[in-house]
């Protein structure tokens, strides 16, 4: 009869002030802080102004062969690249009112930003970085046509408001810290050997897993929904397709819960679990656009695609800004796969621990 265990575990988790703070208050604080910090950057994009940037090629390396393709891609993304063969870079930027300047030297490049237009500099850097990554993928520029196509796909940026962006991604990020939701329960169970009572009553490991998994998912989703509703009320965040977004957030929370439970099952130590979870989730968030927007971050796309948070963020942000996203399916599949694999591993580790302790 694990339904009563589930019911009471929900009560235990729901009554925790830490959970209310982490899943409702913290996302709202970060939405306010990050959306205002990145407001200029996002507005710059929204305004759709054409950025003017200069460039110089120092020698005849790969860049010289790719420059025409790069200029085309830049033009498609409202960045106008003009060559300046001579002159002091600082003077050129100032006199020509440029947003940035790029110096290509062999296979490397340097982007110069101005103090006044740092965001524009980041956008230029991102565009060039994405282009070079795609160029590498297309065998170092052997097929510039292929480069142009993949680069265009890689860095298409949807017009999204910073409040909408952070309103969405912070709810997802804190959902990934799901293990904290069960921390006090698990610590209490360990301290007072409550698990022994489940063993005496012959409650199997899969049932015990469900008795923790279901309440954690329920509480994290409830927290995410409340935070999302408050984000709409307080910041007017647009969540796009509400039901599809809810499904994505719910599955993401379920995946996060399974992941946290697996780590806890391996370590059997809540402090180790929380440190490991926060570290891994921080990296997933770092590459997934939880702090710096994924559109402008210069991280390699291959690493971004490894982060489940990237798929979830991108799906939700594009649903909000464009009404559709090709990342919906990858986001859902990623979450389902993590949930399934981590659940099985957590149960196996729990069963093995029962055998070891005896």
């Amino acid at each position, binding site marked *: *009869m694990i339904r009563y265990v589930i019911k009471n575990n929900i009560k235990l988790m729901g009554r925790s002030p830490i959970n209310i703070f982490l899943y409702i208050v913290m996302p709202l604080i970060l939405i306010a802080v990050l959306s205002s910090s990145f407001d200029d950057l996002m507005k710059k994009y929204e305004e759709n102004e054409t950025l003017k940037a200069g460039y110089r090629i120092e020698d005849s390396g790969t860049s010289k062969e790719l420059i025409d393709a790069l200029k085309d891609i830049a033009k498609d993304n409202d960045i106008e690249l003009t060559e300046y063969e001579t002159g002091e870079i600082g003077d050129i930027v100032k006199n020509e009112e440029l947003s940035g300047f790029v110096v290509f030297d062999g296979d490397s490049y340097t982007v110069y930003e101005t103090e006044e237009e740092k965001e524009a500099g980041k956008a230029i850097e991102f565009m060039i970085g994405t282009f070079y990554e795609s160029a590498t993928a297309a065998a170092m520029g052997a097929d510039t046509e292929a480069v142009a196509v993949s680069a265009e796909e890689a860095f298409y940026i949807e017009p999204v408001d910073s409040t909408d962006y952070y309103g969405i991604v912070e709810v997802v990020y804190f959902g990934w810290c799901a293990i904290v939701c069960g921390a006090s329960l698990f610590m209490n169970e360990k301290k007072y*050997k409550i698990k022994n009572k489940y063993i*005496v009553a012959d409650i199997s490991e899969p049932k015990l897993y469900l008795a923790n998994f279901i309440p954690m998912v329920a509480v994290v989703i409830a927290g995410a929904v409340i935070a999302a509703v408050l984000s709409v009320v307080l910041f007017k965040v647009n969540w796009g397709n509400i039901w599809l977004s809810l499904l994505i957030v719910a599955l993401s929370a379920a995946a996060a819960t399974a992941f946290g439970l697996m780590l806890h099952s391996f370590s059997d130590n809540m402090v180790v679990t929380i440190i490991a979870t926060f570290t891994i989730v921080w990296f997933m968030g770092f590459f997934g656009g939880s702090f710096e927007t994924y559109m402008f971050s210069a991280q390699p796309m291959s690493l971004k695609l490894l982060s489940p948070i990237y798929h979830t963020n991108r799906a939700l942000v594009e649903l909000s800004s464009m009404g559709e996203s090709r990342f919906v399916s990858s986001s859902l599949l990623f979450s389902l796969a993590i949930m399934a694999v981590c659940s099985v591993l957590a149960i196996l580790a729990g069963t093995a621990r029962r055998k070891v302790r005896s």
Partner: protein
Amino acid sequence: MAAILKTKDLTKKYGNKIVVDNLNLEIEEGEVFGLLGPNGAGKSTTMNMICGIVKPTLGEVEFMGKDFKKNRKELCRELGYIPQQLAIHGNLKAWENVELFTSLYGIKGKELTKVIDESLEYVGLLDKRGEYAKTFSGGMKRRLNIACAIGHDPKLLIFDEPTVGIDPQSRNFILERIKESNEKGATIIYTSHYMEEVEAICTRIAIMDNGKVIAIGTSEELKKMVVSDPSTITLEEVFLTLTGKKLRDI
């Protein structure tokens, strides 16, 4: 009386250390069986093996005439375990704690509601059913700990030092309840370091040391093992004579 519980050559080793050594116990139905021993004697490990928390290295446990390991699903409902630790949730109300642990034995719905009230009344906490366990005193928590283990009306109740750190009134209340449970038909296994408690409620007592039972019998029989006139010696003196005065947990 038939034996409700038998241990056959029950042994537990951790590495090279033998914690319980070929233990053969027979506990008869309806008795209050006391298990005494200094720290590290193997009492808790024995209890844990009987309950299925720890698997024996060798030997087996027969409960109600059946192999406990092979018939756990059926037999666990007849076993109530009151651990030394306060295995309750402070952030749950008294009734919620009882509901949580009683439901593990398949009791549900209206029956569960009835059992919750009966269990709380039994330990004198019915009027506190809606209060959080974290607000309870040590004695009340001990009583709640008992209420969480008796709701499914088991035939065998195992009490592992249930009166540690509580006032005499609470201790007396718990001992009275244990006697009452026994009178209603439950068999009791009871461990404690309080000799007068064991002497007061146990019909038979075993003294364990170094994983083995070194003496077993009624209080009188144990005393006669040491002196000819049992009225001249206390159970504690018998215990110290048999197990020695050397400190065990240094």
